[in-house]
């Protein structure tokens, strides 16, 4: 068993990065995720593992530092919160277009605009549908506990390198600021230049050697036919992710008449709502997507064949509900799909969700 600690989600992201052999972190302070860089700076990993930690002049600069370092084949990451992620959108699009691996952590806060510093899930569309310009997808992991903040750092890196694609950990202010018991991962050494090459091939800017042509890391292709070809390859990659990387959790869905669909901290709240509903004799279950892209649409379509309806619970005006509706539509059994959400940094309570379930779905 790994080391047990009581830590904030944000602190755990930092600790997990050091422990998984991350080569570099580039970031800019923004509430509610500043503890990530603060923890890294206090831990001084440059002495321990050689990991680089740099406070950039802006989120724009930090994502471009990630782009540069990732282009050299290194395991690098950044973290921010919603407004900062918007600033990074251009760089993320370049990283996706240049097919580089990296990890981006979004500890979401309420928007739009400067919004609020309280938790939100209103960046679902931005995270799962691309976010920047062009046809691209991020691998999106949604942790629902401080433990998953630990576990998903290494998982995100694994997926990012497997597909040479940016991976996002889509968290929120609640998980970032909350402390829970966490079992930390064991230390892994950082990879050497030779190990990186052996494991991932030699596409990176490691310096042109006599044994290969020189490498160009770019998203630019002026020949439209070639650019379309690139896009087709990206789409193929996203389809493979949809086949192979869907992750979700089902809680009490076996005999459920109604299913809540919620991710991240909303899913935690819904677990309690399930208990409340079950105590009233209502057969309610919970489906928690862990990967938001790829989305567990097949599992939802399967459930749709035997349940009476779905309620998505999100800290937004209704975003994931569109993916649930699509999945239900594919099932051929058009059961109702409703949404309950709070916005502006307000976290729904388990009681509210249970009431909404009865009013919007069961009673309606």
């Amino acid at each position, binding site marked *: 068993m790994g080391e047990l600690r*009581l830590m904030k989600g944000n602190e755990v992201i930092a600790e997990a990065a050091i422990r998984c052999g991350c080569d570099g972190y580039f970031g800019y302070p923004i509430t509610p995720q500043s503890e990530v860089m603060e923890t890294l700076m206090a831990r001084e990993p440059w002495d321990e593992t050689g990991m680089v930690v740099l406070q950039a002049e802006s989120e724009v600069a930090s994502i471009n530092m990630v782009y540069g370092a990732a282009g050299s084949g290194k395991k690098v990451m950044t973290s921010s919160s919603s407004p900062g992620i918007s600033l990074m959108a251009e760089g993320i699009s370049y990283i996706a277009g240049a097919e580089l691996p990296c990890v981006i952590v979004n500890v979401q806060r309420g928007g739009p605009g400067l919004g609020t510093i309280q938790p939100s899930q209103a960046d679902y569309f931005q995270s799962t549908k691309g976010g920047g310009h062009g046809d691209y997808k991020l691998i999106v992991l949604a942790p629902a506990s401080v433990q998953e903040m630990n576990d998903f750092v290494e998982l995100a890196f694994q997926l990012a390198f497997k597909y040479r694609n940016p991976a996002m950990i889509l968290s929120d202010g*609640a998980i970032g*600021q909350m*402390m*829970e018991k966490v079992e930390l991962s064991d230390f892994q050494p950082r990879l050497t230049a030779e190990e990186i090459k052996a494991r991932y091939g030699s596409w990176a800017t490691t310096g042109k050697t006599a044994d290969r042509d020189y490498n160009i890391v770019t998203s630019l292709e002026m020949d439209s036919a070639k650019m379309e070809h690139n896009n087709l390859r990206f789409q193929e990659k996203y389809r493979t992710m949809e086949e192979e990387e869907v992750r979700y959790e089902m809680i009490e869905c076996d005999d459920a008449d109604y299913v809540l669909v919620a991710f991240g901290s909303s899913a935690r*709240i819904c677990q*309690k709502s399930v208990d409340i509903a079950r105590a009233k004799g209502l057969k309610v279950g919970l489906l928690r997507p862990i990967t938001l892209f790829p989305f567990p649409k097949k599992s939802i379509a399967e459930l749709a064949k035997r349940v009476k309806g779905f309620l998505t619970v999100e800290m937004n005006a209704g975003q994931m509900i569109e993916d649930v509706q699509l999945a239900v539509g594919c099932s051929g059994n058009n059961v109702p799909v409703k949404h309950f959400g709070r916005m502006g940094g307000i976290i729904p*309570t*388990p009681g509210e969700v249970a009431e909404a379930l009865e009013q919007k779905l069961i009673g309606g």
Partner: protein
Amino acid sequence: MTEEIIIAGFGGQGVLSMGKILAYSGVMQGQEVTWFPSYGPEMRGGTANVSVILSDSRISSPILHEFDTAIILNQQSMNKFEKAVKPGGVLLYDPHGIVHPPTRTDINIYKIEGTKIAADMGNVKTFNMVVLGAYLKAKPVVKMESIRKGLEKSLPERHHKLIPLNLQAIEAGVDHLEVVQKV
């Protein structure tokens, strides 16, 4: 066993660290725990609150709308959280600065003169530990041994010399709990 607690008061009263020590004590005795703070500008001198859950099984929602125990340290928090105590639950408060004491008749109400006791002991900073002691007397959810370990874990090493003082404050809280109402 699951115990859902809200601790609420002014920023600077040690609300968050009381919660942290309690949560770490839970970890020390093998429990699942969550510690969920209010955060942001409101921490700077305004009200601060933290909900702590200790449980023998997996914890679902870290965000709660009702609590087994409310530890209330100022009037605003009394106004907000008295109604959030589950029927039969516990409300513990420090009467210092409270002008409208709790009025519910369906909950157990306790008092601790934390501000006064801490001042009498010559260290107002141990106020939160006095209150913690009182809570543990009312509801012994964690063992004193776990509290000592929790203090060791949550205080940076350079502050470990303060642990005996903190334990003394907790003892004082245990000794001075006053029962207002039992249901």
